[in-house]
């Protein structure tokens, strides 16, 4: 069986300060428990402008306009060092403003749940039609002309609390709402529908960017794996799905089906392994692994950031799409013989965790820890997490990997810091759960491998399963991304066997042509049928 490759990637962010205020769980819980709190009273003074968000170095890194190596060279705090001439778009995606995102929520809304105010709609529609590289025929019709402001107000006032609409603000301005999809169903409330439509819309943005890059046409996508952290369904199947197919529909992937994979922050790594396996087994040729962003996590550490006088840096939704394809002989391969997994019985000590995720798969294929040039483990932006007391997550993971290398006798204890610097990557992804989980680096790592600057990387995703209160376990999955050896690999002897089969077949054809009349006639009949 031939290896699967990472053929292309796209990455998108959505600046969402108003969704942060109204949909982020830190803020919604605070509003319920302590509505007059200082944090809520002053929250808007800590929000960033769209321009600041675009110029934020980690965000430019996420969409690929900068590399993680370039980011690491910038002195912190990064929020005080905006990138000069920062660009909204990159070759791989974009950082979208909130007003356009509301329009996307409406465009992907299949049940007329999103209402946008008419003047707002016409302004945004005009701009998007003129400048958006992912705008397609039919989007204007789906967006529609909007509704009068009074109609939006009507859905926000009165009625049963469970059926009340969720408002959509731009700062203080009410520009729309999302209606509940059912009067009593708690899986279809306006709040849940807003969360799910945000996942769908941001996933569509990432997928359309991936397709716009030209490595695959929409019609050639065979399968989509969606790996975000939300659940769509109704009260009888709360997590029934299927975001994958819903997203693919909005990108014209008419020949694709798909499914949702869940595993907290480890889901993208699980999904990549599944995608590679499906392609390698020959079930599908082109599988897209994608995810949209989580409104719930907007402003998750906002209280700490505000206390320290920082801007609320968790003001973006993250999204990505990764194309896993049949071997093209060029793109980096995913080595399914070197998949790491934290098993149910692996144990929870740091050493046991890192052995099962990092070391075991490497030793299985005869590699050492130092044979991997870069590790991408949990790429959370440390500027966000350190200020909230959670430390530098990618660095913590890298230190554990380095400690394992010391234990294996590969490096000296004194070399831990340099090993971390040389083999790790600085975190740059927003704390959107599944979004930072190893996969944000794949675009950069793919470029580096393709350029011949490195040979292999290990992508690591970890998931906090205990948050679901079904188990105390957590999870971890890894896979190797490696330079393509240059031509599709065949199992030992397979090429010779194929040549022999072809030669035998040709000999038989030749024989039938020179044989007696009956043989020639039979051959002619066969040709005629074909």
């Amino acid at each position: 069986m031939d290896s699967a490759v990472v053929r292309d990637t796209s990455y998108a962010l959505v600046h969402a300060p108003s969704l942060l205020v109204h949909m982020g769980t830190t803020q919604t819980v605070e509003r319920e428990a302590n509505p007059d709190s200082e944090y809520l009273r002053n929250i808007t003074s800590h929000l960033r402008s769209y321009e600041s968000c675009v110029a934020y170095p980690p965000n430019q890194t996420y969409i690929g306009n900068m590399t993680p190596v370039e980011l690491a060279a910038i002195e912190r705090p990064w929020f005080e060092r905006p990138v000069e001439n920062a660009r909204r778009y990159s070759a791989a995606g974009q950082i979208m403003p909130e007003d356009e995102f509301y329009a996307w929520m409406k465009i992907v809304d299949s049940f007329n749940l999103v209402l946008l105010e008419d003047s707002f709609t016409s302004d945004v529609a005009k701009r998007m039609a003129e400048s958006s590289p992912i705008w397609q025929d039919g989007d204007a019709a789906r967006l529609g002309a909007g509704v009068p402001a009074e109609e939006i107000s009507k859905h926000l006032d009165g009625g049963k609390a469970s059926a009340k609409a969720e408002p959509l603000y731009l700062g203080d301005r009410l520009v729309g709402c999302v209606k509940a999809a059912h009067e009593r169903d708690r899986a279809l409330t306006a709040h849940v529908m807003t969360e799910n439509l945000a996942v769908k819309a941001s996933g569509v943005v990432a997928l359309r960017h991936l397709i716009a890059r030209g490595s695959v046409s929409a019609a050639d996508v065979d399968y989509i794996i969606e790996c975000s952290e939300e659940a769509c369904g109704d009260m009888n199947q709360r997590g029934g799905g299927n975001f994958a197919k819903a997203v693919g529909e909005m990108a014209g992937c008419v020949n694709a089906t798909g499914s949702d994979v869940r595993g907290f922050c480890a889901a993208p790594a699980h999904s990549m392994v599944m995608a590679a396996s499906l392609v390698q087994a020959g079930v599908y040729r082109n599988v897209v692994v994608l995810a949209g962003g989580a409104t719930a996590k907007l402003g998750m550490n906002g209280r700490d950031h505000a206390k320290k006088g920082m801007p609320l840096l968790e003001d973006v939704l993250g999204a990505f799409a990764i194309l896993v394809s049949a071997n093209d002989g060029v793109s980096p391969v995913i080595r399914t013989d070197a998949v790491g997994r934290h098993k149910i019985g692996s144990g929870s000590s740091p050493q046991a965790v890192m052995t099962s995720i990092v070391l075991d798969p490497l030793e299985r294929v005869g590699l050492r820890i130092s044979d991997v040039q870069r590790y991408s483990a949990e790429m959370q932006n440390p500027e966000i997490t350190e200020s909230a007391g959670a430390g530098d997550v990618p660095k913590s993971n890298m230190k554990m990997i380095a400690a394992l290398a010391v234990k294996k006798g590969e490096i000296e204890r004194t070399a831990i810091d340099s090993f971390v610097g040389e083999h790790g990557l600085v975190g740059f992804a927003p704390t959107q759960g599944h979004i930072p989980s190893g996969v944000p680096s794949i675009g950069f790592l793919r470029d580096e491998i393709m350029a011949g600057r490195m040979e292999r990387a290990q992508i690591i995703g970890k998931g906090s399963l205990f948050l679901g209160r079904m188990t105390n376990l957590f999870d971890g999955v890894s896979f190797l991304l490696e330079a393509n050896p240059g031509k599709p690999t065949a199992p030992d002897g397979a090429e010779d066997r194929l040549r022999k089969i072809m030669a035998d077949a040709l000999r038989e054809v030749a024989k039938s042509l020179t044989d007696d009349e009956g043989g020639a006639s039979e051959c002619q009949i066969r040709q005629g049928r074909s």
Partner: protein
Amino acid sequence: MILRGKKVIALGDRDGVPGGAIEECVKSAGAEVIFSVSECFV
């Protein structure tokens, strides 16, 4: 610190030392774990 006979609350971190690992360590030192949890800070 002598842990024998002490009661311990273990607060672990998924990306650091998880609660279960702390629990095993302090138990082996003779402490009684009255509460153990792992948290996710990201």
